[in-house]
């Protein structure tokens, strides 16, 4: 039974061991950042952070804190590896992505260390699947240096209010322009597409607005193609925090409640496009 030998191995042989009663608590969060093939995983005793990047301009991080797992052991200070996220998600949903009500897929995830594959043991109804996914050399991830002390404007919205806006974004527009201001229009999303421009205004006293802290008018443009993938996280989330710093960098933090009512966070960082030209309002 060579397949089962890893289970018998001493847990001390692994630099990372994590067990989860409901694999969907992990797979759902990972889907929210699945816009590129590969991801880098960092595990510390606090949990796992999975990072996906694109075009050196956008970075998405999913945080799965240790408390989400029923068992979470990290032997080293930090464990880092790169993995094919598509394959990982395929394996995690090997018993189907929408299971029958009442049946849960349990997961045990083991990683022996640099050069070893990531081992997944998935069990549902007494059936066990073992997956070995080769890990890759970790790549250095971008440091956006987004520091909360440099944050100029911050808005927390109920995700419901942004969901439709993001799903209906005019994709013929190259950019999404975000205006945040202490005065009118307070919070505005604008696109400039083939058909003309469109603006979406949220008043600051709207019921959707959980908090509104804008100190200075900022108008920044972001590549719509880079921001569009964040819709995946938006759809899952209940609240979103939108922040911009003094350089115009954008941080979108999504609060996602999993099936067990626990809270996880997904974060997107995005660089602004070039200077806003004087044009349409």
């Amino acid at each position, binding site marked *: 039974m060579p397949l089962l030998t890893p289970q018998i191995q001493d847990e001390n042989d692994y630099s990372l061991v994590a067990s989860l009663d409901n694999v969907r608590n992990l797979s759902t969060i990972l889907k929210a950042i699945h816009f590129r093939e590969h991801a880098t995983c960092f595990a510390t005793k606090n949990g796992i952070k999975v990072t996906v990047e694109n075009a050196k301009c956008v970075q998405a991080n999913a945080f799965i804190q240790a408390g989400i797992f029923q068992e979470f052991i990290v032997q080293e200070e930090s464990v880092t590896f790169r993995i094919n996220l598509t394959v990982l998600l395929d394996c995690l949903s090997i018993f189907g992505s929408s299971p029958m009500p009442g049946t849960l897929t349990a997961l045990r995830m083991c990683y022996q260390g640099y050069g070893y594959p990531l081992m997944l043991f998935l069990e549902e109804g007494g059936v066990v699947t073992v997956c070995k996914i080769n890990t890759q050399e970790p790549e250095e991830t971008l440091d956006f240096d987004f520091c909360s002390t440099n944050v100029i404007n911050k808005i927390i919205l109920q995700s419901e209010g942004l969901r439709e806006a993001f799903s209906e974004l005019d994709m013929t527009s190259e950019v999404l322009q975000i205006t945040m201001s202490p005065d009118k229009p307070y919070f505005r999303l604008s696109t400039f597409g083939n*058909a003309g421009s469109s603006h979406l205004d949220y008043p600051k006293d709207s019921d959707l607005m959980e908090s509104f802290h804008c100190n200075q008018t900022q108008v920044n443009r972001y590549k719509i193609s880079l921001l569009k993938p964040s819709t995946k996280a938006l759809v899952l989330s209940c609240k979103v925090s939108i922040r911009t710093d003094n350089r115009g960098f954008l941080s979108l933090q999504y609060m996602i409640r999993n099936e067990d009512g626990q809270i996880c966070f997904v974060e997107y960082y995005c660089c602004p496009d070039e200077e806003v030209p004087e044009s349409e309002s």
Partner: protein
Amino acid sequence: MKCLVTGGNVKVLGKAVHSLSRIGDELYLEPLEDGLSLRTVNSSRSAYACFLFAPLFFQQYQAAAPGQEALRCKILMKSFLAVFRSLATVERSVEKCCISLGGRSSRLVVQLHCKYGVRKTHNLSFQDCESLQAVFDPALCSNVLRAPARVLGEAVLPFPPALAEVTLGIGCGRRVILRSYQEEEEAGPSCSCLHRQHRQSHGDRDEHRAGGFPAVAGPGRGGHHFLPQGIPGTPELCGIRKLVSQRLLRCTRPAIFAVSDSLLDGHFVLATLSESDLHSPALCSPELRRLAPPLQAHSTPHLDDFANDDIDSYMIAMETTADSEGSRAVPSISLFPGLRPPCSPGPYSEDNEAEAGTQPGTPPPKKFRSLFFGSILAPAHSPPGPSPVLAEDSEGEG
């Protein structure tokens, strides 16, 4: 122009735009004194649809700023449709919709006021255009079917959306028959195929008047082909209002689907296809033929000023016209060179003779019988000789 739509009427407007989008790629928006008109025509000019929203449909309606002329415009259907893309969302969250044209910005501004104070503003670019008008008169129709929209909607539902044509006819027992054909390739003409028939008994219809003809509609051949692409638009309207009346002109004329209500009027005018194929024995059931009155039996149609001696353009003439008041210097462009002045009647004889010569079993010619404009112009306008080849044919590899 400025108008304000509130409550459930926003969804009605959205639905109307959705059904127009099934027909054409461009939307003609024209504020008139008697309401806001939305019109479209498809690229081959074989289908036309229009809605007229009465001023009462709006909470506020102003066709033109005082002292100014009303503007009309043409916009991309896609961009206007995007405003109402999700009807469910429109229904759930939009409280009012304000459409304005001719302000400082040279844009058509559509503003949606949504729940939670959220406001969506779409500034759509538009083109100036002349008025799009199809000349048709439902009152001239010799045959009228009037039914709850649901009945007609359910009847066309089983037909595949990609189906190229559907025939609507009235069979014996005052039944309405909708049927489709298979292509000739698989089956020889002798057995070409009744694909599906919908029979609807008289009772399903509120009114079924086959004007002038006992039981059998049409001038004898009991068939009326048209492209079904427009029909899927009509079920969409079912949600809007109750009645669709379909008016069939003489066989060779377009089918007009109409919805009406005190607040809105909608017309879908679909060209019909040439129907010489009905001579094919397999396509024309014996009973239909038996019941068919002789061609000469039908009454002479009314000829009004747009009628002329050209059979192809007889049924409907669509043209871009200037305001009839002539207040503007917009030239009236008639796309039928031969349309005016009206010539002597007698539109049928020539064509019917031609058809009589058709051999039984001739495959359906799939030719529009009643283009709004187009085919009749083709010979005159086609470039003489082959067009110059700009690049040489590349030799086949190897």
